[in-house]
């Protein structure tokens, strides 16, 4: 029993390690891409139709390749970056490549929710494009961006399980090597339960934060405490 617990504990930590860093790097790449998609659009603050079309095309290609295939296809790239293709750190590379275009679209849709009139008002106040991006688009979209982060994190979490099929550790690997190859149903069931719990926890926490920071909706009484605790958006 103790063996099982320590096995699952290690697996969970490995899964969280991959999820956290993949999400982080996916946003480092995807967030600027999403911003560029919005501002270079025809109705954006810096219309550049050609650049917009190219980035849009790259993002769509990235999103249409199934993750299992992408993982294998970019093996040379992964090796060039981390020196190996086995292990959790190596898995982060294809995870980021797969998730960044998805993040770009999530960010794009969040920023497009910002009322065009607010952007126009800030233009009339003499805001520079950089100020509009930073202080208007991103600042106004924060609650929506956090909801997007919740979706991205959960998607990346499920991808880490797939990475378990080709050399990464984590709960996915446990489910495959113990659950499938050795028929240890207890391990299989435990990993499934753990994944469900992880998804629920991530989603609940991020949605609570999103609601707590959102000043555009009442938020409800139950979030007052969280607001006071987190002091977000001050």
């Amino acid at each position, binding site marked *: 029993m103790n063996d099982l617990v320590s096995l699952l504990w290690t697996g969970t930590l490995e899964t969280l390690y991959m999820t956290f860093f993949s999400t982080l790097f996916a946003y480092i790449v995807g967030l600027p891409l999403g911003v560029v998609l919005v501002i270079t659009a025809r109705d954006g603050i810096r219309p550049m139709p050609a650049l917009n079309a190219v980035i849009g095309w790259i993002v769509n290609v990235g999103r249409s390749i199934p993750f299992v295939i992408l993982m294998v296809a970019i093996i040379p790239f992964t090796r060039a970056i981390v020196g190996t293709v086995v292990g959790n750190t190596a898995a982060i590379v294809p995870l980021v490549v797969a998730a960044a275009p998805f993040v770009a679209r999530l960010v794009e849709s969040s920023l497009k929710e910002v*009322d065009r*009139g*607010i952007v*126009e*008002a*800030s*233009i*009339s*106040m*003499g*805001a*520079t494009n950089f*100020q509009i991006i930073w*202080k*208007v688009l991103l*600042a*106004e979209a*924060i*609650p929506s961006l956090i909801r997007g982060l919740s979706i991205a994190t959960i998607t990346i979490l499920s991808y880490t399980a797939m990475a378990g099929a080709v050399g990464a550790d984590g709960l996915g690997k446990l489910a495959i090597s113990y659950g499938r190859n050795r028929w240890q149903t207890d391990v299989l069931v435990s990993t499934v339960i753990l994944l469900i719990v992880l998804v629920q926890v991530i989603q609940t926490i991020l949605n609570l934060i999103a609601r707590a*920071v*959102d*000043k*555009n*909706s*009442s938020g409800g009484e139950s979030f007052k405490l969280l607001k006071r605790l987190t002091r977000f*958006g001050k």
Partner: protein
Amino acid sequence: MINIRNLTKTFEVSGQTITALERVNIVVDQGDIFGIIGMSGAGKSTLLRCIGLLEKPTSGEIYLDGVNTSHVSGKELIALRKEIGIIFQGYHLLMQKNVRRNIAFPLEIAKIPRLQIQRRVDELLELTGLTDKENAYPAQLSGGQKQRVAIARALAVGSKVLLCDEPTSALDPLTTRSILQLLRKINKTLGVTIVIITHDTTVVRSICNKVAVIDNSTVIEQGFVKDVFTRPEHAVTEQFLSLELGGEWDE
């Protein structure tokens, strides 16, 4: 103050050229409260966007304090935009920032020192009667309060001109009156020149000294309100005035 000469603005919409404004000439003097009245689609919002430097004229010029604004761009354009404050029918406040931060916003982007911002915002809160609402968020305010925030924000950097795009169309009559009183106070005490776009003759009657009537993309009549409204020379102006008394009497 504002001198509009032969302003024409056309848009290309799916291959067709649509004329929004044609050879518009308007002179607004320092200290005026200038009403621009017209039916929906007459071109008055495009006119406001041109004066507010949000659209470039297709031809013609707009002079602001003697400076031709029609061909400026880049940093000059950004500096010039600060001379003109705009308030909109839909307020367009930052929904994630409280009243104080909304009013401070134009000062922040102008990189004014924090302490100075604080003092300026306090003044504006007092001027617009929002002192007790400084920590409220726009979602918690009434329409009239939101418009007050928008007015305070538009005046924050010390603009000499305030453009108002249908500022009271979404407000009830009582709130409309208080917003118009606020605008008059701003005009009298700060000497801010005000241009109001509206389709409501009562707005023009209650605070404007001059008026221009726009119909079908062009100015058909302009002058002092007392002249234009007592001796309208144009059928459209008469129509506006008759609607004021209740349009059904005409029939």
